[in-house]
């Protein structure tokens, strides 16, 4: 168990070290997210009532696009210099590779969300005073499910010769339950929204862990 956790930590640390030295993903993705929020803000930001109600969905548009870009880029680093072949030759379970990628993607997404979310909350005047921690928890749980799906399909797509942009197309319809459940949970807390989010995470973490070894090809 500790050995597996160690392997996951080593893999995630490798990805984060690459990101720390090149800084190629985070800056791009954060700016993209802020741009999306401001583009939509010009449309509906002038109407306060509409803006406050629409804010969770607008945040999700930003999360979705920046997340897909983020997953694509972290997987693309494995395409260079045959890094993926080396990774596949390593004497570890393929599920561990998945978990490592998931961990680094999740950390990057948390970093992105930590910038985008306050921007969205400020721009659209969301009132979070009722349950600020609940809001953060809902977003965090949703991010886990989003990253679970995104990491699996980034691996699948990067191993297949495909036109760019297809990852967004695959991931968006699959994560619609997350978007609906989390926006509804933020707008009207209570109900089964949280249960759906947790079920989504559990189902797709398990399924992806099992399926991932069939997905990667150098």
């Amino acid at each position: 168990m500790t050995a597996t956790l160690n392997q996951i930590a080593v893999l995630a640390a490798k990805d984060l070290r690459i990101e720390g030295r090149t800084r190629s993903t985070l800056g791009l993705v954060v700016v993209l997210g802020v741009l999306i929020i401001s583009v939509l803000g010009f449309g509906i930001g002038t109407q306060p009532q509409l803006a406050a109600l629409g804010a969770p969905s607008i945040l999700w548009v930003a999360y979705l696009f920046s997340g897909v870009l983020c997953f694509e880029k972290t997987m693309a680093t494995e395409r260079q210099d045959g890094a993926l072949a080396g990774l596949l030759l390593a004497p570890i379970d393929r599920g561990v590779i998945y978990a490592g990628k998931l961990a680094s993607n999740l950390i990057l997404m948390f970093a992105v969300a930590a910038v985008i979310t306050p921007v969205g909350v400020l721009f659209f005047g969301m009132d979070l005073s009722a349950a600020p921690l609940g809001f953060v928890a809902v977003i965090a749980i949703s991010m886990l499910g989003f990253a679970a799906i995104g990491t699996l399909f980034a691996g699948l797509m990067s191993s297949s010769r495909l036109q760019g942009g297809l990852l967004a197309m695959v991931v968006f319809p699959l994560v619609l339950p997350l978007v609906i459940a989390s926006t509804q949970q933020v707008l009207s807390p209570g109900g089964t929204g949280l249960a759906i989010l947790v079920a989504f995470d559990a189902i797709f973490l398990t399924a992806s862990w099992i399926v991932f070894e069939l997905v990667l090809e150098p």
Partner: protein
Amino acid sequence: MNRKILSCAYWTVAALAFAGVMGLIYFWTPFAIDPNDGKPIIFQKILYFHLPVAINTFLACTVCFAGGIGYLVNRQTWWDDLAAAGAKVSVVLCTGVLLTGMLWAKGAWNVWWTWYSPRLTFSFMLWLLYVVYLIVRSSVEGSQRRAVVGAVYGLIAFLDIPLVYLSARLLPDQFHPADITLSPSMKLTLAASFVPITMIALGLVFLQYRLHRVQRGEVVGPLTLPGLGMRPSLTGGAA
């Protein structure tokens, strides 16, 4: 027995059953009565088409799922062809569900589309899921890789269906459809209408499956029902 005759017989029975059910719906089944104002609800008869098509959509999705799992386990191409056939038919059927659902929404609430109806929203999200399956499939190079991508996507999409359904129910449900208890004759019509529509759905899956096999240059494989196989003259040369 001649395959062509079996195939003709199958589709003739399906067509006759369809015509028979149409007759039942139009001439025999009574109108449902709105409990609120006591008037007949004419558009309620969409149900006899709408519900069987919806159930068969799930059937086709299950075929796609089973085909994908089978391919991941066995790595035989016919599983992949089956999955592709299931996905294609599920998109066609789901389009039928959406169109009849929209007609129903127009009749019941006087709008063509509403996000407030969880079932309509659910059908739309299901349609999106499987349309994306077809598009992703067609844009992957290499038949082996295409099969893997399709199988993994089909698996994840199938697991997604219950979550999509549950999350659609979270949307505020402003329009409550009137609760109508079906009389015995209505139930009979509903049950009867499952026969032709399930036959048509299964027939389409088999036709698509056979088409994919032939495109691959193979006609051998399980589930090539005798009545639905290619004629020997067309299949003899392909290897």
